[in-house]
């Protein structure tokens, strides 16, 4: 079972992301975190096959969360997708630079997110 973590403080946004990822091939379990802190509480105990995060969030921002993921042995190789309203070239470079595998600017195309997630999930399996 593939496990995907979604970190996003806006409830509406969260449900849109979840809706985009409906019907991915194979069993998928989606875990939602409403804030960076909530994600921080979950991460040490569990592993995920993919993480999707927003950048602008109240307690820690998405870049800080990304940095945390990369610093943790457990999650360093977990594919990371950033979905954010910050669309300037600079912000994208920042996101990718910190180790994200993909950066989507909001409003995002649900199909694009789906495809990216599928690719990243498959890419990982191939590694085995």
């Amino acid at each position: 079972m593939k496990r995907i973590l979604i970190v996003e403080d806006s409830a509406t946004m969260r449900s849109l992301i979840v809706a985009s990822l409906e019907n991915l091939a194979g069993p998928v379990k989606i875990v939602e975190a409403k804030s960076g802190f909530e994600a921080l509480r979950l991460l040490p105990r569990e592993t995920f096959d993919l993480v999707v995060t927003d950048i602008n969030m109240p307690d820690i921002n998405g870049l800080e969360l990304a940095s945390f993921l990369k610093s943790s042995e457990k999650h360093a190789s977990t594919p990371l997708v950033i979905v954010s309203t910050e669309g300037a070239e600079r912000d994208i470079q920042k996101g990718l630079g910190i180790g994200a595998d993909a950066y989507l600017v909001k409003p995002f195309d649900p199909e694009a997110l789906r495809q990216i997630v599928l690719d990243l999930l498959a890419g990982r399996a191939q590694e085995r």
Partner: protein
Amino acid sequence: MTSPEVIEEHAGKAADWVGVAREASHAFVAGAAVEERRELVIVQLAAGEYAIPVERIREIVRLAKVTRIPRTPDWLVGVVALRGEILEVVDLRRRLGLPATEATRASRIVVIHGDDDGVAGLLVDSVKGVLRARERDVVPAQGHDFRSVVELVRSGMGFVSILDLDRVLGAGDE
């Protein structure tokens, strides 16, 4: 495999079992080539050994007082209280159709994650250790009429059945 003693030592603390199991196994295979491994905790049930994937295990605790629940199937031992949470304890022997037995000091409750946030406790006779198997040592269980086993893992000279937890726990019906 890591020895039961090492694990026992840690079992006393309320440590995160997954971490311990991982650390213990890492110590054993330090230097091995980087190849995807499956980590399984081996438990004893009647005369046989069974394997449970480590990532589904939340923790392993000693058998505390289990409160019986009236009029429930016999594979449900009852419930235990674990830090404020109330968990059902499933008698894995009965669930797998093995003869029932009395619990002993070695008996343990393996607390696992069900799917969609469920949790449950599995009562086993004892916990033998952690097995770090290579992917190629896992084979499908063909020709066996197991309802709860989908794969087997090679261990020593024989094979150990890997419990398919979702099947074992089913929808709780029966």
